[in-house]
C-alpha cells in the first residue's frame, strides 16, 4: 500500500490541511507521521501548538490510523494517561472505511478541539465539567495550553 500512503503524504505536505504542519517522524518510515496542529482560534486551545503522532498500522488502509497527542492537552476526547489517545468516529475500526484519508482524520481531530464530543468521551469527568461548568473547563484547558503547548 506504499503507493497510497505516498500519495496521501504528498497531498498533505503540498497542501497541508488548515492549521497543520505534517512531516515524517523518520524519513525512512512512511508509517509514522508527526503533525503540529495549531489550536483553533475561538477555542480554549488557541495559541497552542499541539504535536500529534499518526501511526499507520501494517494493514493500513484496511485498519484505521492511530492518533496520539504527544503534547499534553485537557480535552474530553483525549486520554489523560500519558498516551494522549483519541479514538472515536472514523478512528474506530467499525466506522473506518479504507477510502478514508488521514487528512480527514486530522480535520476531524481539529474540529473536536473546537467542539468536543461529550457523548463519546474518553475522559468522562472532563466531559461532565465541560457540560456543567464550561468556565472551569476553559480555564484548565487554557492553563494546560499555556503550560504544555506554547513555545517551540
Amino acid at each position: 500500500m506504499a503507493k497510497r500512503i505516498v500519495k496521501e503524504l504528498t497531498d498533505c505536505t503540498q497542501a497541508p490541511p488548515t492549521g497543520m504542519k505534517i512531516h515524517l517522524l523518520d524519513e525512512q518510515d512512511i508509517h509514522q507521521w508527526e503533525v503540529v496542529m495549531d489550536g483553533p482560534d475561538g477555542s480554549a486551545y488557541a495559541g497552542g501548538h499541539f504535536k500529534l503522532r499518526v501511526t499507520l498500522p501494517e494493514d493500513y488502509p484496511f485498519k484505521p490510523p492511530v492518533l496520539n497527542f504527544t503534547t499534553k492537552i485537557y480535552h474530553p476526547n483525549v486520554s489523560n494517561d500519558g498516551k494522549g489517545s483519541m479514538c472515536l468516529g472514523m478512528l474506530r475500526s467499525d466506522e473506518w472505511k479504507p477510502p478514508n484519508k488521514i487528512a480527514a482524520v486530522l480535520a476531524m481531530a481539529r474540529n473536536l478541539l473546537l467542539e468536543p464530543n461529550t457523548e463519546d468521551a474518553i475522559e468522562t469527568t472532563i466531559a461532565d465539567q465541560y457540560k456543567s461548568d464550561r468556565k472551569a473547563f476553559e480555564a484548565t484547558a487554557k492553563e494546560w495550553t499555556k503550560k504544555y503547548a506554547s513555545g517551540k
Partner: protein
Amino acid sequence: MESDDEINSFHTSDDEGMDDPDSDLSNGEDSDVEDELEEYDGDDVGFESQEKIGKQQKKPYEVDFKVYSPEDIQRAQQRTVDEVKGVLQQSPEATAILLRSFRWNRDKLIDAYMERREAVLEQAGLGDEASSGAKIMTVPGFCCEICWDDSPEMQTFAMKCGHRFCVDCYKRYLTTKIKEEGEASRIRCPGDDCSRVVDSKSIDLLVSEDAHDRYLELLTRTYVDDLENLKWCPAPNCVYAVDCKIKPRDLPRIVPTVHCDCSHEFCFGCTLNDHQPAPCMLVRKWLKKCEDDSETANWISANTKECPRCHSTIEKNGGCNHMTCRKCRHEFCWMCMGVWSEHGTSWYNCNRYEERSGAEARDAQAKSRQSLERYLHYYNRYANHEQSAKLDKDIYIKTEKKMTQLQTTAGMSWIEVQFLEAASQALQQCRQTLKWTYAFAFYLARNNQTEIFEDNQKDLEFAVENLSEMFEKPVDQLAGLKVDMMDKTSYCNRRRIILLSDTAENLKNGNWEFNVDFDTPR
C-alpha cells in the same frame, strides 16, 4: 403435570408453510409454556438428529430440548431463506440479509416488508434494487481509491451502489472484516459513507476458501445468537447449540437443565452448570452472596477442621463425612461436628438448621450473628458437597487405577468394575443436586411443603454418604461389595429423582414460599 408443557420449537418442516402464523422461527411474544401444545414433528428433514425426548416418560424436572450440530443450524437457516424469499420476491442473498436484520423473525419481516418495503430495504443496507448483479470487470482509466493503483488491466468490483475498487482491495477489506473483526452479517460496502451490506454472493465471489468458511461459521453464530430459543453449549470448544422453548419469564417456575451431546449439563436459562432444584434467580442471588461473603466462606470451607475432642487438626481426604481422628480415634461428623454414633441411621441433625430460641433472637447482636450462622450453616453444606464431589472423583480415579492393576493380578474382568463408574457418576450427580438444595433451602420460607423437602434432602444425603463411604474401603474389598454398591447406587439415583420431582412440581405450582423477592427475569 403434563409432559407437553415445554415443547420443541424449531419445527421447520416443509409442510408448515409460511401461512402458519405460529410456525418455527417466529419465536415471538405469542408463546406461553402452558398453551403451546404442539408436538415435535419427528419427520422434520432438517433436524431429525439427536432426538432425546418423548421416548421415555418425562420426569417433572425435565424439559424438552434438542441438540443441533453446526450443519443442522446451517440447514435451518437455508430453509427459512427458501421459504421467505418467494414471499418477498427477493434473491436468497437479499432474503438472508433481510432476515438477519429482523433477527430471523420472519413474520415481523414479512409484515414490515409488505407495509414499508423501501424503508425495510434501506434499513437492511439493500437500498434501491436488492438483487445483486455485481460482477468482476476491468474499467478503462480506473484508479482504485484504496491502493491508488491505476494499472489498465486491473480487475475491479462494485455492488449495486457503484462503489468500485480493485478486486485485491475489496478482497482484503472483506477478509479483514471476517477474519480479524469477526463480522459477517453486517459488513458494509467499503465505499465512504455507504451503508449497503455486502451480500453473501459478493462474498462468495471475492474471498478465499478459508475466509469463506469462517464467514459461514460467523453467520451461523449470529443466527443462534439472534434466536431466543437457541443457545450455544457453554462447554469449551463445543460446537453444538441447544434448542429449548423455555422463556426467561418461565424461569421462576422451571429450572431447565439441558444435556448437550458433548455430555455437558447446563441450565438453559442462565447457561451455568446444572443447578436443579434451585431456580436461576436464587442461584444468581446465592452466588452473589457467596462472593460477597467469601472471606467468611473461605474460612469456613477450609479443608481442615479441629477434632472436637482433642483439637488436633484433621484434613478431610475423601468425600465421606464420617471422620475418625487419627490421634484420639474420636468418630464425628464433618458437617455438624457431632458424634458420629448419633448419626448412622438418623441423619436428622445434619441437614437442617434449627432456628434458635426467641430469647436469643431478641438481642440485636445475637440476631446478626444468628443470620450469619444461618448462612454459614447452609453455605457449609453447600461447599461441603462441592468439595466432596471433587474428592469422590479423585478417589474414584485412584480406585479405578488400582482396579486396573488388580485385573491383571486377581484376574477380575473389566466388566466387573463398571459398577464403580456408575457409583462415581451417581455420586457426582447427587452431590451436585444436594449442593443446590442447600442454596435453595437458604431462601426457602417455612411452610407445610418444606418438611417433605427436608426429608427428601435428608434421605438423599444419607444415601450419598453411605455410598461415598464405600469408596474409601480398601481396593481388595471392593469386589465383594459389588452387589451392595450397585444397590446403593440405584438407591441414590432414585432418591435424587424423588427430590427433584417434588421440588419441580411444587415450583411449577407455586407452592414454595421464598424469603427473597424473585426478580422479574431480564
